[in-house]
């Protein structure tokens, strides 16, 4: 089933004194259930706005967005949609509501009026999923960024969404924390069939997705499998985006006269190609 469908979506906001500022300029996009999509783009490309449109924190100025066939401009469907689209934000500190881990995770289902036994079951399940069961009675204050962000993910999971949007959720974390969050996202996608939309500006993270959507100036610039997207490395660099390190190394070797195949994504492939040359 189609999870997310955007039809010529435009979004603008007015800035006092300087008129309307168009952030999204005619986006057409379709994401199927169970996909793992990475949304990349440099600052101001409109990727975070797009994320906020998905769970009705914002509504489009023009065009139509539907989540599992539900129109986001329908006021009666707001909570129905928010239940289906879970969203994890950038700063883990600013999305914690309670001072105790399990209370924070329970917040979503409590808001939905889920019966008590079911809340407990969901909290257990969500904390287990992110590997934080041991910490359920601790306070998040002294935890690492990666742990906090995993708790934030558990808080969203307890709502039992079908789509998980990670809005730059790894941007403030150290490499260890990024790996933790990313592996949780991958696990949810592979084991539970959850649709994951990962918004990031780290190309090495985007690589983990099945599909990469590159945004630039409020439009979709490139959309395809990682390999296809990174073939257009010159275009990516023009937009101020990088390519994965292995790819970059291969390209530089090629430029310096080494007859290496540059159509690679990760380190293993790079090692393979280099070995072939020997």
């Amino acid at each position, binding site marked *: 089933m189609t999870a997310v469908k955007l039809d010529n979506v435009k979004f603008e906001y007015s800035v006092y004194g300087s008129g309307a500022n168009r952030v999204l300029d005619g986006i057409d996009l379709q994401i199927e259930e169970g996909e793992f999509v990475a949304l990349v783009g440099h600052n101001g490309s409109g990727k975070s706005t797009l994320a906020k449109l998905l769970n009705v*924190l914002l509504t489009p100025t023009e065009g139509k967005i539907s989540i599992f066939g539900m129109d986001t401009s329908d006021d009666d469907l707001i909570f129905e949609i928010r*239940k289906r689209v879970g969203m994890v934000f950038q700063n883990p500190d600013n999305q914690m509501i309670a001072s105790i881990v399990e*209370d924070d995770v329970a917040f979503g289902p409590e808001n939905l009026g889920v019966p008590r036994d079911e809340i407990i079951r969901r909290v257990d399940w969500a904390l287990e999923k992110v590997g934080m069961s041991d910490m359920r009675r601790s306070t998040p204050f002294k935890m690492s960024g990666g742990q906090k962000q995993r708790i934030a993910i558990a808080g969203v999971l307890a709502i039992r969404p079908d789509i998980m949007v990670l809005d730059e959720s790894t941007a403030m974390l150290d490499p260890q924390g990024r790996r933790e969050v990313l592996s949780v996202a991958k696990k949810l996608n592979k084991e539970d069939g959850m649709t994951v939309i990962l918004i990031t500006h780290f190309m090495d993270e985007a690589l983990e997705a099945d599909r990469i959507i590159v945004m630039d100036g409020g439009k979709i610039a490139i959309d395809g499998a990682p390999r296809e997207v990174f073939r257009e490395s010159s275009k990516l660099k023009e937009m101020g985006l990088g390519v994965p390190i292995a790819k970059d190394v291969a390209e530089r070797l090629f430029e310096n006269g080494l007859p290496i195949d540059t159509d690679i994504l990760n380190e293993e492939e790079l090692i393979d190609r280099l070995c072939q040359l020997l």
Partner: protein
Amino acid sequence: MRDMSFGQYYPTASPIHKLDARVKILLSVLYIVFIFFVPSYVGYFVTLLFITAVFMIGKIPMRAMLKSVKGILFLLIFMAALNVLFYKEGKVLVDWWIIRITDKGIDFAIKMALRLLFLVMGASVLTLTTSPMELTDGIESLLSPLKLIKIPVHDFALAMSITLRFIPTLMEETDKIIMAQKARGSSFDTGGPIAKIKALIPVLIPLFTSAFRKSYELADALDARCYNATKNRTRMKVMKPTWRDVIAFFVMAAFITFICLDKWYFHGLDALLVEFVRSII
């Protein structure tokens, strides 16, 4: 840095800690009200025994108890001094210039000071043995009848617990800003008091900006987690009074009965005690 979100909470496992927060709040209110009815020194002595017992059962160390008293020491002395100096009735002991010290004045001042002292000690039992989260939940639960007249009790309670939750975050932020401003050459510990206050402005402004930004992000996070999705919100943690709460209630009831007897039946046990001692001699 200490985790400030716990306030003065002293985390340990004791029968007092395990009491239902609502029961503790109600009993504290009762205690505070009835402390004002204690008429005699005998009564205050019993109160001292009572509150010491509560501290001991609550496994609260002397240090924590003294700390709660230290905060009001100045107020206590100040009030006692005023009472001693300006109480007009009773037998005059010292009469000099505008100062007139009477026996009743001294008596009144001591009783007032004891009252305030025991009041603060009693109130601090509540905050020392109840975590802020439990306290908020308890207050919400106690105020829930107000929902009938459309007062958004839950929103208030949430605002309260979010405030507590953000204290450590904002402290951390303050430390960061102070360090950032120090790195740019601002100094916080030189100059007179006015210069010191002025030096805080470059800390306060970024702190406010960041607090507002955080509040916007938090509002989005609340919305994203379906806040206000239904009026019939459920709760994971349900507070249920147990046999402990019943016992606590009866202990408090016994204490209150003693105070009432002291005041209205014996009209102050001091006189009786004095008579008793005299009869022995």
